[in-house]
């Protein structure tokens, strides 16, 4: 493992806020081909919508932040714990931390934990992503 990576354990990620827009819900539903009416009219949220918040809410590249080679990076695992309901119009603030780093089978594994908090201060979602860097 690159010497720097282990030192990133505990590092805080960029904090960002994203407003849950109906248009983005519809766009994600169309891209997946999950054409339920309540998604298309932006009244219900798809289970994987948090990924939209991650990419559109944050400006920084996680690979850059961790010093990973983008050509070698894969998404290994994703876990969501839904603690509360996310609604259209919500303002979601995301904070994250590098929870774990380890090497296995000549690959680096980085686990990022993120908490999604709504405008009322309620934690509605916990996300854990495993990022894999091939050597």
């Amino acid at each position, binding site marked *: 493992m690159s010497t720097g990576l282990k030192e990133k354990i505990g590092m805080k990620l960029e904090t960002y806020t994203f407003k849950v827009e109906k248009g983005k819900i519809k766009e994600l539903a169309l891209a997946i081909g999950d054409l339920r009416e309540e998604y298309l009219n932006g009244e219900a949220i*798809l289970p994987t919508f948090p990924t939209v918040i991650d990419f559109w809410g944050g400006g920084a590249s996680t690979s850059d932040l961790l010093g990973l080679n983008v050509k070698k990076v894969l998404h290994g*695992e994703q876990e969501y714990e839904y603690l509360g309901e996310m609604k259209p119009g919500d303002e979601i603030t995301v904070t994250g931390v590098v929870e774990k780093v380890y090497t296995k089978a000549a690959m680096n594994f980085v686990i990022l934990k993120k908490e999604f908090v709504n405008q009322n201060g309620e934690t509605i979602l916990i996300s854990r992503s495993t990022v894999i860097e091939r050597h």
Partner: protein
Amino acid sequence: MEIGYQFEPLHKEEITHSQLVRYAGASGDFNPIHTVVPFAESAGLGGVIAHGMLIMGFVGQAIGQWFSTKDLVKFSTRFRAMTRPGEKITVQGHVVDETAERWICQAEAVNDVGEVKVKAFFEIKKR
């Protein structure tokens, strides 16, 4: 509903390059390994690969057919194999366990020769 219960599989249409471009825009994941063939080739992937989150989205669609997603309390996936344009994904699943409050379920996204792309576990609040 009971342990072992098999859900009706969800059959998705063939994944296209256009779908990956569309998913990149929708999700905001513009990593060119998903959309730009020469870049993906130079990364040693032999061509573009689908976003893992797109395949997780297919599983999410299946869960929405099997239950109300409002009852979904936990959803985890492991991305096991790369998926490429031209592949057709089916999502299948069953109930593996239960607690007093929850159904514990498993799902897989597989291609038409049965290669497992995504293995998922999810938990549903009992009504």
